[in-house]
């Protein structure tokens, strides 16, 4: 029989420590929607998504009510549009983004991911059209998210795309300048992208996935922080053990929610993404976990080590709790979405360079970084190249979600609202990378031995 302490512990995690299931994401294959006429293609995808996703939001709400666990987002991911739209006779995929947006609104999900292309080794015709359509697509839609994979450990880095994405990010910022470049918050550039990630903005339904699949992203930085308060002053073995036990408990609930959603919708269970995803809310910060380990402020020497322990222990604990783990599992460090990161930037302890070092051991990369509007496309490409190189060499996922906010400079701040939070403008190294980025071509795939 359950004890009163166990029951109260679970409810305290939910009520006081912001434990929640961050997302139930329904992945849908659009491979059977292709058509040479883009109008018919758009109609096909709208019909398929609205039919497949009809009960998603309702199912999520039912599970939330019955178990008393908040399920914050219900979302949809689809096959990368560059692949399925390629047979359309069209020179822009903006209408496809509009069809995705309309479908998302009809089924009531707040984001739909998959306006994506995988170009780590090179472009096809569809990839080029999709990438060129991104700025307008993100400006004209509300719920569509876009992602590009431009590097991998097996293929190297597509430096032509690195150059192009700097320009695309700048253009997206210009077209959404009336919303503080909000379009860029819905655009991620990846290296080694996972094809089963349920978290936005990088979610898409990989080509090796089933027809439909349910994946769940759990969260709970506040719960980990609270658990670590109990082991203050103890050594790192105690820290790692505490994180593992907490991650196990959190992930078990994610597994329950995923199984229930899968059963009720008649859709196979995919994976649990056992991520610590912060929000700007008090008590929901990854930075505060690092500070709880003994750092005065996130960014202080020791921060990378603290994040490495956290990321590794979360995976170890979570892996034991779920039958299938995938996605981006680990600890996210999105600056504007984390109250502790925001405060650390404001007090000058967290810089872009330190964040880059942290991305060597976090679960994703440079995330939700607001920079001055006059940051050049080549500089943004340089940042992307650095991040892609870290991912390629270290055989890990890395990403860049950077927002050059028009009209803003260092000293200003920007408010994105909701889960996207707010951020001070982060200073960027002002020395130029233009000639480096202008070269283009491909950085060859790295050697996998002599690892020193």
């Amino acid at each position: 029989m359950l004890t009163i302490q166990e029951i109260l512990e679970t409810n305290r995690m939910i009520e006081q420590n912001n434990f929640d299931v961050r997302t139930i994401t329904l992945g849908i294959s659009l491979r059977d929607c292709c058509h040479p006429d883009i109008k018919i293609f758009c109609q096909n995808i709208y019909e398929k998504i609205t039919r497949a996703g009809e009960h998603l939001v309702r199912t999520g709400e039912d599970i939330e009510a019955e178990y008393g666990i908040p399920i914050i987002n219900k979302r949809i991911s689809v096959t990368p549009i560059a692949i399925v739209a390629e047979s359309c006779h069209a020179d822009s995929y903006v209408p496809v983004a509009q069809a995705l947006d309309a479908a998302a609104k009809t089924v009531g999900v707040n984001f739909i991911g998959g306006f994506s292309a995988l170009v780590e080794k090179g472009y096809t015709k569809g990839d080029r059209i999709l990438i060129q359509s991104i700025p307008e697509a993100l400006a004209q839609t509300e719920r569509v998210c876009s992602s590009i994979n431009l590097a991998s450990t097996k293929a190297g880095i597509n430096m032509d795309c690195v150059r192009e994405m700097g320009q695309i990010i700048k253009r997206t910022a210009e077209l959404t300048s009336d919303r503080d470049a909000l379009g860029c918050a819905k655009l991620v550039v990846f290296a080694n992208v996972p094809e089963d990630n349920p978290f936005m903005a990088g979610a898409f339904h990989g080509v090796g996935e089933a027809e439909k699949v349910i994946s769940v992203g759990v969260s709970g930085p506040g719960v980990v922080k609270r658990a670590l308060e109990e082991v203050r002053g103890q050594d790192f073995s105690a820290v790692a053990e505490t994180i593992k036990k907490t991650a196990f408990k959190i992930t078990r609930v994610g597994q329950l929610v995923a199984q229930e959603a899968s059963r009720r919708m008649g859709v196979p269970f995919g994976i649990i993404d056992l991520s610590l995803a912060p929000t700007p809310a008090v008590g929901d910060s990854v930075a505060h976990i690092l500070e709880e380990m003994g750092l005065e402020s996130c960014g202080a020497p020791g921060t990378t080590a603290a994040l490495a322990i956290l990321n590794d222990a979360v995976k170890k604990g979570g892996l034991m709790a779920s039958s299938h783990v995938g996605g981006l599992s680990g600890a996210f460090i999105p600056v504007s979405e984390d109250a502790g990161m925001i405060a650390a930037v404001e007090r000058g302890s967290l810089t872009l360079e330190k964040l880059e070092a942290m991305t060597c051991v976090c679960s994703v990369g440079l995330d939700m970084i607001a920079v001055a509007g006059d940051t050049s496309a080549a500089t943004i490409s340089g940042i992307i190249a650095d991040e892609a190189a870290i991912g390629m060499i270290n055989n890990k996922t890395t990403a860049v979600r950077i927002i050059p906010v028009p009209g803003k400079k260092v000293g200003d701040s920007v408010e994105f609202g909701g889960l996207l939070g707010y951020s001070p403008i982060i200073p960027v190294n002002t020395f130029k990378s233009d000639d480096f980025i202008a070269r283009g071509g491909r950085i060859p795939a790295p050697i996998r031995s002599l690892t020193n």
Partner: protein
Amino acid sequence: MKAVITIVGQDRVGIVAMVSEILAVNSVNILNINQNILDGFFNMVMIVDMASSKVSLKDMQQILKGKGDELGLDIKAQHEDIFQIMHRI
């Protein structure tokens, strides 16, 4: 199906009686009650069997929440599996 009912709030006469009555009227069987007073606050956890219940868990949540709001108590009913899966392997 088993459910866990938790009640938290200012202590007063008749809380257990009031909740028990609602459960009895709806044919919900109480399996276990654990109750204590901490700093004047009433804490109670009940595990109940809803196999013969006349109402769904969702409806029971509404009935209990309504009664709780009336009396200034926080009353929640949750499917037992969320606790089992977290604390039992």
